[in-house]
């Protein structure tokens, strides 16, 4: 039986995108010193949404200086006052969440269902959570009077633009730091809208500075000598380069990098629930998620059953207009990312894995990649080792729990993992042996501001979220 859906697009009229945006420095929008600009497009239509000033080294200097000037006053505020600013921000995000959800979907390409139900609620919750910490830091277990570090340089990715901003800015401000944040070049808009939220909240100028730009802007920012803290979320390769840059300095560094998460399905798992979890694990945000469950490890005895059910379910996923409320799979964020996903998938096929693609229509404009499953994958295959960062699932099998654990841990990464079984003791035993920072049992891709998130091994270091997330911004 096929279900037909009438189009149900969310209205674009709730968001008013200006034709151009400046850098947000010291409480004002300004042009780049060298006058450079770049455009941001909507990945689902390739329509140009707006033009941004592109920050260069001189602008980085200016923004860091503004943050430094603001630091003295901001860090000296009573925690209870900083808390109230953050509570204000949380409330304004809630009030404007529909507008921001549409904006994020336009700029990023992800389904409105996700920006509306996941990204935005989590953004508000994150600010609300860290607001409450601002005047309770002496109870956080980091000494009787923990001090902020100073100016935080923050570089965030394009997969959850506003949520990653919240993960970075909320704990930084709560602990008394000031920030210079560089959003990703393909998704700068929500960060600039956030600048407007800071204005509405009456945040003192210079406490938050936003510098749209490319990798060179980020490199200049993290290398700036007057920065005390560097926080980066993005690829492992760039994370390593940043670690080399800050070596020998006193800058505190936290990195949240790539992953190749194992989603382990045992033979006693309820298949229908596991299938929902597998789908969520790899197709949430088109698989452009660092903690995606991109390696499915399924017990050999239920392999065929799980794979059949999985393909059946994937075939019902609706790919298309991200603003449509029925859409499950949106656009890939950029032409560059699409090319990378395509190339890795082709490599998977060339190396002998069996490729299956969901039967869905691909729109004529924009960047799209149909949900794809590789079966017969071995640990040596590129699709089992490299982070694809797209809607591509690699299926491997195992026979015993020990084999599952060994295969799950056979990666340079260590960010996430999933366990599907009805047996409680098996969950605990397996979770105990997995070298990963976040383990979901009988669920996947759950996030919460109270819950620390971050990786083992080459998935980076430091934690974001929860009490643990404060440490990254305190001089301890």
């Amino acid at each position, binding site marked *: 039986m096929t279900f037909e859906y009438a189009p149900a697009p969310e209205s674009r009229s709730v968001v008013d995108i200006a034709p151009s945006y400046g850098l947000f420095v010291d409480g004002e929008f300004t042009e780049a010193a060298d006058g450079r600009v770049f455009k941001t497009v909507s990945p689902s239509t390739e329509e140009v949404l707006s033009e941004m000033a592109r920050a260069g080294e001189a602008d980085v200097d200016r923004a860091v200086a503004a943050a430094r000037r603001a630091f003295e006053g901001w860090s000296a505020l009573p925690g209870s006052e900083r808390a109230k600013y953050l509570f204000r921000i949380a409330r304004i995000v809630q009030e404007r969440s529909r507008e921001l959800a549409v904006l994020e979907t336009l700029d990023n390409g992800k389904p409105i269902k996700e920006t509306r139900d996941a990204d935005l609620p989590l953004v508000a919750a994150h600010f609300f959570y860290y607001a409450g910490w601002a005047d309770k830091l002496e109870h956080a277990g980091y000494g009787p009077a923990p001090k902020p570090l100073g100016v935080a340089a923050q570089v965030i990715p394009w997969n959850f633009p506003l949520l990653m901003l919240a993960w970075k800015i909320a704990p930084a401000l709560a602990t008394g730091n000031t920030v210079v944040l560089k959003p990703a070049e393909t998704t700068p808009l929500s960060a600039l809208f956030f600048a407007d939220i800071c204005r509405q909240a009456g945040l003192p100028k210079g406490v938050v500075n936003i510098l749209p730009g490319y990798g060179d802007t980020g490199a200049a920012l993290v290398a700036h000598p007057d920065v005390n803290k560097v926080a980066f979320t993005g690829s492992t390769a760039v994370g390593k380069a940043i670690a*080399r840059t800050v070596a*020998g300095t006193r800058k505190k560094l936290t990195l949240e990098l790539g992953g190749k998460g194992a989603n382990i399905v045992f033979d006693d798992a309820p298949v229908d629930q596991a299938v929902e979890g597998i789908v969520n694990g790899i197709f949430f945000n088109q698989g452009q998620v660092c903690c995606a469950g991109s390696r499915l490890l399924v017990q050999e005895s239920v392999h065929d059953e799980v794979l059949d059910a999985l393909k059946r379910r994937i075939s019902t996923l609706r790919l298309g207009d991200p603003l449509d409320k029925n859409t499950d799979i949106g656009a890939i964020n950029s032409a560059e990312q699409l090319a990378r996903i395509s190339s890795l998938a082709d490599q998977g096929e060339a190396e002998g894995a069996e490729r299956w693609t969901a039967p869905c229509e691909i729109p004529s404009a924009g960047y799209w990649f149909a949900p794809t499953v590789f079966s017969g994958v071995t640990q040596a295959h590129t699709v089992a080792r490299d982070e694809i960062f797209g809607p591509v699932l690699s299926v491997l099998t195992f026979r015993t729990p020990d084999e599952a654990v060994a295969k799950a841990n056979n990666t340079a990464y260590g960010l996430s993992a999933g366990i599907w079984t009805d047996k409680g003791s098996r969950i605990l035993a397996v979770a105990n042996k997995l070298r990963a920072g976040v*383990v979901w049992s009988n669920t996947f891709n*759950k996030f919460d501001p109270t*819950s620390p998130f971050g990786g083992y*091994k*080459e998935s980076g270091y430091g934690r974001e979220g929860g009490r643990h997330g404060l440490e990254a911004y305190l001089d301890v």
Partner: protein
Amino acid sequence: MSDRPMSERLSVFKTYKLYVGGRFPRSESGRVYEVTGSKDGNWLANAPLSSRKDARDAVVAARKAFGGWAGATAYNRGQVLYRVAEMLEGRRSQFTREVAEAEGLSKAKAAALVDLSVDRLVWYAGWTDKIAQIAGGANPVAGPFFNLSTPEPTGVVAVLAPQESSLLGLVSVVAPVIATGNTAVVVASERSPLPALSFGEVLATSDVPGGVVNVLSGRTAEIAPTLASHMDVNALDLTGADAELATGLEVAAADNLKRVLRPRTGEDFAATPGTDRLTAFLETKTVWHTTGSLGASGSSY
């Protein structure tokens, strides 16, 4: 050449050897270097001049020991560390002499440092089964989940022991690393390695499984780069590196994103340590469990 009368009993020198994988090998390179007293410059012993190969062998031993040590109960690790303290206490006079010669101190001052070293081990022995309650806990997530964060050891930690504090400094950097379940490859003070090498003998007689702590002596600048760039080392403590060496090592450590503890200026090893060194080499694992609900109405009451 000596002016000592030939009628006196000739003492037996000790051959100082490395401690790797629970055994006492010489350097595979066959090299030694002369260790002299810090005050008078008198010859004390020939210490092994470890090679890069010795460093790699030590990493292999530490990796092999990691699963068992990390998997031991915290109570067990605490007892083992306490046993180390007992063994060191029993060799108090030997270490007093070695520390006095190594650091050019009076007997009384050296004895006080040995006592502090014993006490430091006792302090960390008591931490093994408490750190998880300090560093972890339940997270009140907004949903039907039980969510628990627990600390876990990072893995194999390469430790450059302090150059000046040959025993107390060494104990102060090694004990917190192993208390939490990591295994260690330790590069002893280059100038004063003898207390560290003797400490290997203490470890060997105190229920610490072989490979949990591996002690190398030699040139820090020669051994450390191998450890910093080793892809099977998970973390690096740069305490014993000078600023220039430390920067280069930190750059090398980025190749597999080792957790790096940078050298601190003027760290006072005699002061009661905080928990910083315990938490420096811990990972936080957060596990989400679905809780569901009881009762068909959706109420759990």
